[in-house]
């Protein structure tokens, strides 16, 4: 029987934590880009598009992420794609992030007074110019704290990818717990590592929010 020292456990968990960070960042950036496109489609104000996008957001906010991951995993398989855990987790988390981010940002855009849109209209700016020069910069200022806050949610969400076999921090924890028979120690360390990843981001988001409030 092999003996595992505490350092063996911690080192292997740290190695796996890289994949948690990589997956979270990938889904966050991908979801951000897609979410921005969805936001623009929603702000542009075509009624049919708005209804569809509202349903899209409702779909991702009203079902468990775990089920979304399973759907991506089995659904992509049905389409004849050779599904790796990377692909399934990446697709599901990116779509999930896009729905949440577009909804967060929509709130920020709607917080901009209507007069700003009208003023931009009266200057004969095009839709893109209005977004780029008038509404966008103001909305961005409000959006930053909650967007950073969502990054924390994203890091925590990647833990669910362990269920479809993606080896990140949680999955590595399960494997190591099974090998060492020390689930208390291993899951304790896993939790501490998530805390070490998330807490600084939470604190940063809180500081940004405070700054924003003071700036007004």
């Amino acid at each position, binding site marked *: 029987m092999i003996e595992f020292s505490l350092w063996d456990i911690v080192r292997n968990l740290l190695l796996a934590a890289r994949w948690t960070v990589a997956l979270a960042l990938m889904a966050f950036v991908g979801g951000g880009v897609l979410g921005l496109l969805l936001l623009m489609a929603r702000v542009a104000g075509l009624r049919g598009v708005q209804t569809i996008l509202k349903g899209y957001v409702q779909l991702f906010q*009203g*079902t468990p992420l775990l089920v979304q991951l399973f*759907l991506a995993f089995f659904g992509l398989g049905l389409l004849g794609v050779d599904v790796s855990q990377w692909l399934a987790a990446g697709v599901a988390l990116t779509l999930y992030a896009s729905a949440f981010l577009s909804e967060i940002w929509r709130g920020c855009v709607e917080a901009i007074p209507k007069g700003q849109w009208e003023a931009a209209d009266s200057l004969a700016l095009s839709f893109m110019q209005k977004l780029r020069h008038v509404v966008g910069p103001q909305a961005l200022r409000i959006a930053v704290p909650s967007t950073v806050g969502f990054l924390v949610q994203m890091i*925590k969400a990647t833990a*669910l990818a362990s269920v479809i076999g993606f080896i990140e921090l949680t999955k590595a924890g399960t494997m190591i717990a099974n090998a060492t028979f020390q689930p*208390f120690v291993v*899951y304790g360390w896993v*939790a501490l590592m998530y805390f070490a990843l998330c*807490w600084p981001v939470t604190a940063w988001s809180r500081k940004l929010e405070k700054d924003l409030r003071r700036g007004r």
Partner: protein
Amino acid sequence: MVALDFTAVLQQWPLLLRGAALTLALTAVSTLLGVGLGVACAWARHAGPLGLRSAVALYVEFIRNTPFIVQLFFIFFGLPSLGVKLTPEIASVLAMVLNLGAYAAEIARGGLEATPRGQVEAARSLALSERQVFFRVVLPPALARVWPALVSQIVIVMLGSAVCGQIAAQELSYTANLIQSRNFRSFESFIVVAGIYLALSVLVRDVLRRLGVRWLFGGAGHRGR
């Protein structure tokens, strides 16, 4: 071409029904205990002694910055080595209560802090005890103020409970896995289950909102609508 066969899944409706019932039951119990815990923690952070205040702050921060699935695994797989053995259902409820408690504490604290000082002073000038002031004057309008946020959090916790199937609590997502292991209709069973979750989240949100407006706050929540 992909042929989808939903009848094979829908034939298993008694299983689906049982799974949905357990999901709702887990959610109901966790909501009652979790909101209670949250209010207690919010009170402790708002007005409790200093030591308690920092202990609660630590608990809230720790829960909010770790994934639910890790909390659940820690409770279900980790605690037995300390001699605490729990059934999957009890472990699920415990994890959900601790999770909701932390988020509810933050939400309720926001409501408590928005209480106008004059209201507390007015209550004290009527010679109400501190306990009466808190439970009769401060708490009800504070909860009414944050009720929509609290309802959203409860729905999030319900959706999070899908993870409890991983420790063999036989809730809705466990049912999906069970059905697909019987008939290999994996995509279809998760589509059906996703639909049920969607319906449950709409239902729970609606029921809780009405409940809040009609009964819990005696109409005080009407402002929010």
